C-alpha cells in the first residue's frame, strides 16, 4: 500500500480538470486512475464540435477538448494510471486492479470521485416488446460508430431526445443510415435547443413529442417499432400507433451517475441527482472525499463539468494542505422549492464562502418569463428574473455572501415562479 495526497478516480473531463486545479493549488502528489486505455472519458467518442465555447472561447471537438487538458498534465507531477479499475474504496484506501500492475492499494489524504455516468437502458423505462438484437443505447451506438467504425443499423428509430440521441441522429444520417423518427415521451425535448435545430431540423428528421415506443417487433432481430402518442400522464393513447420498419432502436433516455463506489464508501447520496450530497466546496458527507462532474449530477456542457471539477480540485488541495478540514460541520441545507427538481450544492457552510457561491439547479417545466426566488425559512434573500428556462438546460444563480449572511444559518429554499406580468 502506498500513501498518496490526492487520488482521483476517473480521468474524463472531470478528473482531468480536478487534477490540474489541485496541482495548481499546490499539491504535488496526485494520482489519477483511469480504467480506459487513454484519458478523456466519453469525450473521445464525441467527435462532433461544440465543446469549449465557455471554457476556451472556441468550438472544439470532444477529443480536442480532452487533449487540451491532457496537455496540461504535461509538465506536472500528476501520475496518470491507465487501464486500471478501482474496485473498492474503504476508509480512504483505494483498491485498483490493472493488467499492468495487478492489484494495488493507495491510502489517500483526499479522494476525488470523478467516475462519470452511464446511460439508462431499457430496463428502467419498461420498454415493452421483443428482446432481439437491435436495441442499443445511443452512446453504445456512438462508440461502435466513432471508435470502432461500425453502424449498428441502417434504418433507425431513436427513443428519447437527449443530446446523445440527437447527435447520433445526425451522425448516423451522415454515414448513410436512414433515421426515421425521434420519439420523446415529454412534450418538450430533453436536449439542447441547438442540437434539435442542427441535428434534426437541418436533416428533416421528424421529432414526435409526447410519443413513446409501445412495441418492438422481430424475433431474433429487431424488425420494426411501434410508437404511440401519450396523454398528460405519459400513458399511451390507443389508436395513435405508428409503425416504423427498422433494424435498430437507439435509446437516449437519460444518464445516471455511476455511484457504486461512492455508495460502497458510505457517501450520502441525493435521490434526485443520484449523486453525492455536497457542500459548496464539493466535499461529500465523508470528510476528504470530494465529487465532481457527471458522477455528481448530469451536466449539459462539458465546460460546466470542467469549472465544477476545478473547484473540487482546488478544495481537495486546500483540504490536504490544511491538514483536513471537514466542511460538514455548521452546514445549512438548500431545499428544492416550487418547480425546482434539484440543486448542487445541496448544502453550504456560509462562513467558508469568500465573495459569493454559484448554485446550479434544474427546473421541472418550461418557463418563458420567470422569477427565481431564494428564501430562508420564509424570508426572501434574493430574486432573479430569467427568460426561457427549460428542464434540459441547467440554470445557475450566484448568491453573494452578504445576502447569505442574512439567513443567519437557517436553511435556504430555491424556487421558481412564472411571471407573465413582467416583460
Amino acid at each position, binding site marked *: 500500500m502506498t500513501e498518496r495526497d490526492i487520488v482521483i478516480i476517473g480521468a474524463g473531463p472531470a478528473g482531468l480538470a480536478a487534477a490540474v486545479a489541485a496541482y495548481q493549488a499546490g499539491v504535488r502528489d496526485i494520482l489519477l486512475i483511469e480504467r480506459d486505455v487513454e484519458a478523456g472519458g466519453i469525450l473521445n467518442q464525441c467527435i462532433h464540435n461544440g465543446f469549449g465555447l465557455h471554457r476556451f472561447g472556441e468550438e472544439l471537438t470532444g477529443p480536442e477538448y480532452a487533449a487540451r487538458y491532457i496537455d496540461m498534465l504535461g509538465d506536472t507531477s500528476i501520475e496518470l494510471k491507465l487501464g486500471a479499475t478501482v474496485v473498492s474504496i474503504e476508509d480512504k484506501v483505494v483498491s485498483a486492479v490493472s493488467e499492468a500492475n495487478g492489484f494495488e492499494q493507495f491510502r489517500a489524504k483526499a479522494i476525488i470521485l470523478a467516475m462519470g455516468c*452511464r446511460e439508462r437502458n431499457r430496463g428502467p423505462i419498461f420498454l415493452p416488446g*421483443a428482446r432481439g438484437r437491435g436495441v442499443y443505447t445511443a452512446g453504445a451506438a456512438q462508440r461502435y460508430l466513432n471508435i*470502432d467504425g461500425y453502424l449498428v443499423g441502417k434504418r433507425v428509430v431513436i427513443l428519447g431526445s437527449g443530446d446523445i440521441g440527437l447527435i447520433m441522429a445526425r451522425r448516423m444520417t451522415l454515414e448513410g443510415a436512414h433515421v426515421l423518427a425521434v420519439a420523446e415521451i415529454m412534450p418538450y425535448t430533453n436536449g439542447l435547443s441547438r442540437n434539435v435545430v442542427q441535428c434534426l431540423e437541418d436533416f428533416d428528421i421528424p421529432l414526435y413529442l409526447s410519443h413513446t415506443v409501445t412495441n418492438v417487433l422481430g424475433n431474433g432481430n429487431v424488425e420494426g417499432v411501434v410508437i404511440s402518442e401519450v396523454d398528460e400522464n405519459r400513458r399511451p393513447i390507443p389508436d395513435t400507433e405508428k409503425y416504423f420498419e427498422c433494424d435498430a432502436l437507439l435509446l437516449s433516455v437519460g444518464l445516471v451517475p455511476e455511484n457504486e463506489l461512492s455508495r460502497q464508501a458510505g457517501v450520502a447520496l441525493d435521490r434526485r441527482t443520484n449523486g453525492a450530497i455536497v457542500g459548496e466546496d464539493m466535499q461529500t458527507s465523508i470528510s476528504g472525499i470530494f465529487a465532481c462532474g457527471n458522477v455528481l449530477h448530469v451536466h449539459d456542457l462539458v465546460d460546466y463539468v470542467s469549472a465544477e471539477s476545478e473547484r473540487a480540485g482546488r478544495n481537495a488541495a486546500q483540504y490536504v494542505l490544511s491538514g483536513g478540514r471537514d466542511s460538514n460541520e455548521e452546514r445549512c441545507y438548500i431545499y428544492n422549492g416550487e418547480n425546482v427538481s434539484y440543486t448542487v450544492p445541496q448544502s453550504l457552510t456560509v462562513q467558508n464562502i469568500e465573495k459569493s457561491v454559484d448554485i446550479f439547479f434544474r427546473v421541472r417545466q418550461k418557463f418563458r418569463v420567470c422569477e427565481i426566488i431564494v428564501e430562508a425559512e420564509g424570508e426572501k434573500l434574493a430574486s432573479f428574473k430569467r427568460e426561457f428556462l427549460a428542464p434540459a438546460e441547467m440554470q445557475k444563480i450566484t448568491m453573494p455572501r452578504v445576502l447569505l449572511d442574512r439567513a443567519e444559518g437557517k436553511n435556504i429554499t430555491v424556487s421558481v415562479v412564472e411571471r407573465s406580468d413582467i416583460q
Partner: protein
Amino acid sequence: MYDVTIIGGGVCGAAVAMYLSKYDIKCCLLEKENDVALGTAKANSGIIHAGYDPEPDTLMARLNVRGVDLTEEICRNTGVPYRKVGSTVIAFDAKDEEHLVKLYDRGVENGVRGMELWDKQTLLSREPNLSPDVVGALYAPSAAVVNPWRLCLAMCETAAENGVEFYLDSEVTAIEKYAGTFKITAGGRQFDTRYIVNAAGLYADKVAELVGAKDFEIFASKGQYYLLDTTSNWLVNTVVFQCPTEKGKGVLVAPTAEGNIIVGPNAEKNNERDDVSTTREGLEFVANEAARTTKMIDYRENIRSFAGLRATSDKKDFIIGESELCRHFINVAGIKSPGLSSAAAIGEYVVEVIEDCGLIMSEKEEWRWAKAPIWFARLSNEEKAELCNKNRKYGNIVCRCNMVTEGEILDALNTHIKPRTLDGIKRRTGSGMGRCQGGFCGSKVHEIICKYYGIPAEKVLWDKQDTYIVAGKVGENE
C-alpha cells in the same frame, strides 16, 4: 453408433447427459440453437422449490424433493451461483392460512425437511419489508435460488468433460427407425443411435411426432419478470410466494443467486413457442400482484424486464419414461414447474429408465466435475492480488457493473462448449448483466470474441443465428 442421443440442451437434457456420462456408453446431445441453455433454462424464476407444492405420489413430488439435494451438490462442485435462502408462502387471511396447513402436510408427506408455520410477528421479524396485511407464512429452509442457465451449463460442461459429445446448430429434422435403432438427421449430419432421450422442451411433442409417438401436447406458457439492481437486495431475504391458485404459484418476490431481486411471473397460456416479448399489460399485472406482497419495490431499480416460456403439457404430471408408441424412445417432456428444481433428479432417474429398457451400462472408474469458473468479484483482496500476479488478464476489468475480468472471459472461451456470441459470454461470466446491461462492455467483449476466433467484427453474433451485432462498416453504406 451412439448408445444414447439426447435431443435438447436445456436443464433436463443437460442433467440426463451428466448422469449418463458416469457410465461407459457412447452418448451425444443435439441442440438446435448455437448454444445450450437458450430456451426455458435461461428465463425462469431460478428457484429450487422445497417440494411442498406437488401432489404426493407423483413424479413431480419425488423428483422435486430429490432434486433439492442433487442441485446443491452440483452447484457446490461446479461453482454455480447458488444460495439456500429458504422460501416463505405468505397468507393474507384465514383461508390462505388453511392452505398453508395443507401445504405443510403435503410437504411432510413429500419428505420436505425443516418446515415451519410462522405467525405474523415471526414473519415480519424475518421479512420486515412485507406488506402489513400478511397474517402468517409457511417457511421452508431447504428452498434455494440458483442461476438456472449456469446450472445447465455446469451440467453440460461436466458431461462434456466425461465424454458426452455436443452438437450445436443441430436441429433434428427427421428420425428414421432402422433395425431396432434410430437414424437421426440433424444440422445436416446423420446420427445412428440405439436410444433417444427427447428433452426438446417446448418442441418435445414435435420431436415425438417425428417417430410417430406424439401422445401428448406441449403448450407454451409465458411468464414476465422484472430484474432489479443488486442495490435493492435489502427487500427480501427469502423467496416470497403468495398462496398458489389454480393458475399457478403466483407472483414471487425473491433474491437471485447473484444478489439481485426478481419479481414475477405472470402466466399467459397458448403463447407462440418462440415469443419471448414483454408487454406493458403483462408487466403491469406483475407489479400489481407484487404490490400485495410488498409495497417497497422501487421500479426505477429495474435493470431488465424479460419473459420466459414454460413447456406445459396436457398431462398433470411430468411425462418421463419410454414412449408407449415407440420402443427405446424416452420422453422427458412437459417439464413445467418445479422443472428446474427437479432437473438434476430427472437426469438421475432417466439413467434408471434407460437401464430398465435394457441398455447395459457400468459405471466408469474415473469421472470428474467440470472445473468451477473463477468469480473474480467474489474474491478477497488477497485472492484478487494473488490471481492477478498469476495471470494479469484478471487485472483487466471488462464489465464494470459486475466486475468481470478479461481472464474470466478467456476462461469461458476455453471451455468444452465454446460460446461464440456476446450473450454466450454473458451467460457464462455475467458480463453485461449488470445495471448498464452491456452499454459499456458490449463492444469490448465483441472485440475479445473477434480476437479469440480470428473473425471480423461483422461476423460476431449477439445471440441466436443471424443476430449480427453490427449492420455494416462505415463507408460501405450506399
